[in-house]
């Protein structure tokens, strides 16, 4: 049970509105890691994440999470998902939101206080979400996904628009969760977040450009910044495609 990868994607094909978003993507995410999913916006990161949590209609291939089909009822309770736009009820308070989702997830009510302090929102628990800043809303959305200690966390750009101090504390939280055994897949279009990940998946135009640890990718491309590594990989990938 604990052997295989946490997430295993094979030949995943997704077509949205007549456009092929993912032509046939294969990748895997090891258990207990913080894996960064990097790539420019529009490259298919969110679509891949939607497929992993089982809310994306797929045209082909397979997605397995913890050894089970993505989105199957047995695995849904073990996967936490945070969408890019904060998906919480704006007309409820922070605590009311968390109470509701805790009941759906069968999480004990003490968890509400714990996740609030995990994301640094203890002070605004009784405030209506509509009165919060964008960054605070994003953290309410994140807190919701932490309620039931999910084994797999799929986070779509969780640190966008946050100040550097907060960003650092969230990355510390992500590593704390992974050292407790959780697997995190975190997307970003900001390349400087790459250094904080154990493993990287670089994506472009629905395809996987490269995968590996950050320093490994730097070494392979002979660069010192992930952004330069990305550009080098795009060039070799393009050249490769030209010859084939």
């Amino acid at each position, binding site marked *: 049970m604990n052997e295989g990868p946490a997430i295993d994607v094979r030949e995943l094909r997704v077509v949205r509105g007549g456009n092929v978003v993912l032509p046939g993507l294969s990748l895997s995410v090891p258990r207990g890691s913080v894996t960064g999913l990097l790539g420019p916006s529009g490259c298919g990161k969110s679509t891949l994440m939607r497929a992993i949590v089982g809310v994306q209609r797929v045209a082909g291939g397979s997605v397995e999470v913890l050894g089970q089909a993505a989105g199957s009822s047995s695995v849904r309770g073990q996967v936490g998902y945070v969408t890019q736009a904060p998906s919480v009820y704006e007309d409820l308070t922070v605590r009311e939101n968390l109470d509701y989702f805790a009941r*759906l997830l069968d999480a004990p009510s003490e968890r509400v206080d714990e996740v609030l302090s995990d994301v640094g929102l203890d002070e605004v628990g009784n405030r209506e979400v509509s009165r919060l800043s964008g960054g605070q809303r994003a953290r309410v959305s994140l807190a919701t996904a932490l309620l039931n200690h999910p084994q797999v966390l799929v986070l779509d750009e969780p640190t966008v628009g946050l100040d550097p101090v907060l960003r650092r504390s969230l990355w510390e939280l992500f590593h704390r969760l992974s050292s407790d055994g959780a697997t995190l897949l975190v997307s970003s279009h900001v390349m400087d977040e790459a250094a904080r990940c154990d493993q990287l998946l670089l994506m472009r135009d629905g395809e996987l450009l490269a995968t590996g640890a950050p320093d490994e990718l730097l070494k392979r491309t002979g660069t010192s910044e992930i952004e330069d590594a990305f550009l080098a990989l795009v060039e070799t990938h393009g050249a490769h495609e030209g010859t084939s």
Partner: protein
Amino acid sequence: MRAVKGTVATAQRVLRQLRRDPRTVAMLLVVPVVLVSLMKAVFAGGGAFQRVGVPLLGIFPLISMFLVTAVTMQRERSTGTLERLMSMPIAKLDLLLGYAIAFGVLAAVQATLTSVVAFSLLDLHSDGPAWAVVTFAVGNAVLGTALGLFVSAFARSEFQAVQFMPLFLMPQVFLCGLMAPRSSMPRALEIVSDYLPLTYAYDGLRLVATEGAWSGALARDIALVTAAAVASVALGAATLQRRTG
């Protein structure tokens, strides 16, 4: 066990959201009262008011819960909360039942208030008991919620969701017998009306108001309105896709 918890938690969450929007709740409760009062004034309290008054008490909740549900559901879709829920272990039916319960409670309050005003202040008369009218109204509200849920699957914006009301409900109001007896309509329309749920909602309320006694026709109307509500909830669950494009 978890299923019941999910349903109850959802119903409470929806009611809590409504409480945060007192203006909408006030309009839902006050507008039907105002409209029934206006109707009495328009008909100068005559026989026409007595004929349509009771059926209207039961049809208001259907229309308002249809609108409230269609818009609320559309909002769940556009804010991403529905996608979050669909990634969670909650069953679709539990979610829908939570909605039906919350709006059913709201409809019960609405119908009770409107009925109290109509029967005590506006001299509306019903041969059957007032509680039967209110019970019918709640059943209609659940039907309205279920239909609203169903059409929200086809709406891409709140504007569209609202437009489904004239498209989907007004023809039923025209054909149900409220405007003109169904037997006086062209045969084709009468046949169409045989298949519309509002026809039986209207007929049941009319029977309660004019006959006041239990009859086979009333039993049939209640059975058909219940069946239509159950079928719409099932259709709503079927149109609520866990996976979307």
